[in-house]
């Protein structure tokens, strides 16, 4: 099993202009723990929307690599969006689900993945270009390569341990985070 902070830290090494949308709860804290970045869009709510935000962004900016980093509970709430993404086949979109098989923010109640519901199988059924399980830190460089250059849509279900880690809280000001992100995009593509 993976340590979530170590895995996310390694995944975001040398991230360059990688855009990251983080699902509410611990994934947002994990991304923040790697350091704030203009290409981070942190969610603190709107549970189930992370993958679709990634799709809208990926369609708008096909030259930008888009990583949605979310939890099993958040991904399960937006399960239909995997079908929607499968229809559109965005080549620049990667979804990494940090799967601790529990709803961590609400008291560690077991999630559906605890019962064996397989998000990789769902993604494959939704015609993702690639979908895989990962549970060892040795695989992180392969996942990082997929994030930066794999043909999407890709879903990675990363089995992390369910131990508690300190919260690292980024800005909750949605306007500020949005404007900073849009500014970073416009500097990348001045004519957009």
């Amino acid at each position, binding site marked *: 099993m993976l340590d979530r902070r170590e895995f996310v830290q390694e995944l975001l090494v040398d991230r360059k202009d990688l855009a990251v949308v983080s699902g509410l709860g611990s994934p947002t804290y994990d991304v923040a723990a790697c350091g704030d970045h203009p290409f981070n869009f942190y969610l603190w709510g709107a549970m189930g929307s992370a993958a679709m935000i990634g799709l*809208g962004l*990926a369609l708008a900016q096909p030259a930008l690599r888009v990583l949605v980093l979310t939890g099993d509970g958040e991904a399960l709430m937006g399960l*239909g969006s995997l079908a929607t993404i499968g229809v559109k086949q965005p080549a620049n979109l990667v979804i990494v689900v940090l799967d601790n098989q529990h709803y961590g923010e609400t008291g560690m109640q077991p999630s559906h993945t605890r019962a064996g519901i397989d998000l990789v199988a769902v993604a494959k059924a939704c015609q993702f270009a690639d979908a895989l399980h990962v549970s060892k830190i040795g695989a992180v460089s392969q996942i990082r390569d997929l994030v930066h250059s794999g043909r999407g849509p890709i879903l990675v279900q990363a089995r992390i341990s369910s131990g508690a880690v300190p919260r690292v809280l980024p800005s909750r000001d949605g306007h500020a985070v*949005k404007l900073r992100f849009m500014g970073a995009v*416009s500097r990348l593509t001045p004519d957009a």
Partner: protein
Amino acid sequence: MDERTTAALHWPDTIYGQFQRVGIRQVGYVPDAGLSRLIELCVKDPNIHDVVLTTEEEGVGLLAGAALGGQRAALLMQSSGVGNCINMFSLIRNCGFPCLVVITMRGEFAEFNPWQVPMGSITEASLKLCSFLTYRVEDEDDVDSVVGAGCDMAFGSDLPVAIVLSQRLIGRKEWTR
């Protein structure tokens, strides 16, 4: 062909014309009979990413992502879909994303299906509670000016705007087959 039927064939083209004017590049939708012509126009347009959704709430995320990437987007849905979106609208309000939603009404004028009435009767009130500006269109002569004004408010002022197309405008013929 009576006047209403003729007009019913034209209002989707009018809305599509406004989409072109303001540069809509992504359109998310859950299919609806009343929206079929507008959806068809958007799907045919190579400059528009047409995204068919499994549920309307997905469209709210799509629209936020489009805005983050610098593209303008619109959502098309039937009135029943508004109820599916309520929590996702927090994304719009908390971040100040522009939001343009075109809604075809059910559960009102000449409705034959009582199951459409509970959501249809609270659609506009729900949108207002979610801080949307709502513009209702009853007459086809108003479609161009109202949709145009709504587009300008949404994208000029970064506001959530709902264009509510009444069931009377869409035409009762569709529902009585």
